[in-house]
């Protein structure tokens, strides 16, 4: 594998090295990396590309914030499949790079992470997703997740003000609980402005299906819908297609405003920068943390993208007021009486579910005002 063995002359090798503009230092450095002891090494694995304008980029932004902390070294791997390969990636980060904190940022990493966590009790493992830690699981494992539907509720208010038709489109991947919660919260937010507002839902069937996502947006635009939002891994295509069709868009995961400078209203975003920085600081201070960390706007785990040029002053004000109510903890989205879109009462009058309520994490209904079904 070393070119010297492949019949290249020494001169050619020297030339190549000079061409690369690199010194031989990097060559001889690798075995020592693991022992660069005093530094805290943080490992992160992503299921897709780090620049997907979506889920993975959100986590990569969080990890980038960690890089700026003094004395912290970050090792990252993108496109790691949710198989035994991610176990090997984590183990490699631990044994070759000396990582002592691992962020496993895809849903399907959970089972694999638990296996590796049991093997390396001195390393901390954290999983980004709606996973539930239970007694008996490795104590060095945990999960973090955000109530991003709160930010979707705010985005719904903004959309409700901006829309001329009162019809919204939502491109989902699969009808799974977190997606349904986003759809419902967005619709409920929009309905506070326009009680007749309607959200048309299209599920594409999988997390990354750019062609179907574009088709979905086109068909929504053809139906007279003028604001589109989504819950797919990479909203890039949805936002770009909406801009091309001249309709408004509301982002998801990270800020996509550069893709739609005219029509981007706001978006529901993760604030992993804060979450990851907290964990690294806690680890260095020797603090422990709960096995499950959850929070929404109040905890600063989610946020909204800055308002776009099409958002009116009135809309901004109402959205900011609603945000303030989330922040001081005086507002709950899921409060009875509430009916689903088949007319059945799902939350009776007088009953309300706080964002932390575990019942919301198994949501299987669409709220009144949503057109679509929970079957894909």
């Amino acid at each position, binding site marked *: *594998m*070393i*070119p010297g063995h*492949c*019949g*290249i002359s020494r001169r050619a*090798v020297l030339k*190549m*090295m000079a*061409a*690369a*503009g*690199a*010194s*031989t230092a*990097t*060559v001889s450095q*690798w*075995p020592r*990396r693991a022992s660069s002891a005093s530094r805290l090494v943080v490992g992160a694995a992503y299921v897709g*590309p780090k620049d997907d304008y979506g889920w993975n980029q959100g986590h990569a932004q969080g990890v980038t914030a960690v890089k700026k902390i003094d004395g912290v070294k970050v*090792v*990252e*791997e*993108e*496109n*790691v*499949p*949710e*198989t*035994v*390969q991610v176990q*090997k*990636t984590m*183990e*490699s*980060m631990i*044994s*070759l*790079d000396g990582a002592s904190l691992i962020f496993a940022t895809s*849903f*399907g990493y959970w*089972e694999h992470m638990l296996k590796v966590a049991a093997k390396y009790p001195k390393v901390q493992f954290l999983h980004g*997703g*709606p*996973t539930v830690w239970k007694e008996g699981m490795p104590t060095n494992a945990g999960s973090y997740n955000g109530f991003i539907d709160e930010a979707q509720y705010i985005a719904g208010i903004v959309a409700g003000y901006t829309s001329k038709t009162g019809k919204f489109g939502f491109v989902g991947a*699969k009808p*799974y*609980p*977190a997606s349904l919660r986003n759809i419902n919260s967005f619709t409920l937010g929009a309905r506070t402005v326009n009680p007749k507002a309607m959200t048309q839902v299209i599920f594409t*069937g*999988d997390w990354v299906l750019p062609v179907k996502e574009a088709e979905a947006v086109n068909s929504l635009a053809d139906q007279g819908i003028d604001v589109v939002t989504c819950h797919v891994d990479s909203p890039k295509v949805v936002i770009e297609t909406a801009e091309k069709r001249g309709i408004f868009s509301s982002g998801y995961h990270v800020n996509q405003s550069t893709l739609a400078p005219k029509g981007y209203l706001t978006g529901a975003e993760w604030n992993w920068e804060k979450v990851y920085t907290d964990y690294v600081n806690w680890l260095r201070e020797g603090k422990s943390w709960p096995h499950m960390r959850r929070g929404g706007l109040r905890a600063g785990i989610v946020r909204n993208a800055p308002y776009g040029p099409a958002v009116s002053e009135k809309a901004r004000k109402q959205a900011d007021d609603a945000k303030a109510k989330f922040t001081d903890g005086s507002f709950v989205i899921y409060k009875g009486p509430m009916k689903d879109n088949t007319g059945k009462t799902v939350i009776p009058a007088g009953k309300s579910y706080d964002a932390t309520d575990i019942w919301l*994490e*198994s949501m299987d209904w669409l709220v009144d005002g949503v057109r679509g079904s929970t079957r*894909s």
Partner: protein
Amino acid sequence: MRLLGGSPRGAAEALTIPAGALAVSLILFGIFVALAGANPLGVYETIYSGAFGSWFSWQNTLQRATPLMLTALCTALPARLGLVVIGAEGALIIGALATVAIASVLPGASHWTVITAMMLAGMSAGGLWVGLAGGLRYYRGVNETISSLLLNYIAIALMNHLVGGPMRDPLVLHRPSSWHVGERNMIGLIPGMDVHWGLVFGVVGCIVTYVLMQHTVFGFAARIVGGNVRAARMAGVPVGRLTLVTCLIAGAAAGLAGTTEIAAVHGRASTSLVVGYGYTGILVAFLARQNPLAVIPVAILLGGIDAAGGLLQRWHDLPDATVHVMRGIIFLVILASEPVYGRLRVFQQSVVAPSNGAVPREAA
């Protein structure tokens, strides 16, 4: 020496040309990474250490090579009959589904009964799946490459339907997944290693099919069909039966990969199974020149490149696509080296050298 070709010179040729092609691709890859701003020597060293530099790296490599050996057989075996089958991805998924299904109807059975049943179920289901492509080819004249490719999509759609409906475990909320085959039915790791038993299945599968294709009447007949179908028919070779049986065996290999993915890794079927093992298997088969025995080292080589891919990202700031570029370069150079066979005078004997495998070659 008999393993590689008929004669010592033939064997030397069969080893030297791929090795040379590999060297050329490494040089091309070095130029590529230099252009990308990394030090090629450092990158080579990282690839070596990440793939084969330590016991940890070796296990990492073998772990990744494991499913590839079985999926590569799915392409390599029909290739002996001159068929290009690319249906390993679908056969793996169907094998995995059958594995889950059979485990669920045997709730009280003993560990070994369930494991045997799971393996048989996975192999038969995968075999029938690719057998479908073989049958379409033989009875209806449907191009087997297209049909096996389309069967992959059907398999994925079928899995999505089953894990989202009839086979869905309602307790797994956030990703449609089938029910679990049960912790006690899982096959563990090879003692003393961090690699599951799939590796043994893979190696045994490659050896058995090598013997079948190279040292039995069946294999001989299959190679005649691969050489010239008409001549084979004239000689009374049962082309149809050979096509079907070979496709069944090929599919069974990929189906067994599905069983091990379930019984040794995931425990339940879900989209986590669709990670391209079937498609990488095609690459392995072509690099191994459709020789089942050569599949073993080639799968290990590609597994090693994969294992090192993470280090290239972490230590050289190269994008994930780097390993795909490397694979692509190797693939192209190996294919381009094909015409070299039989043309290098060093390897020629005064008598006509017997051909290696199914690739017909003019006498020098």
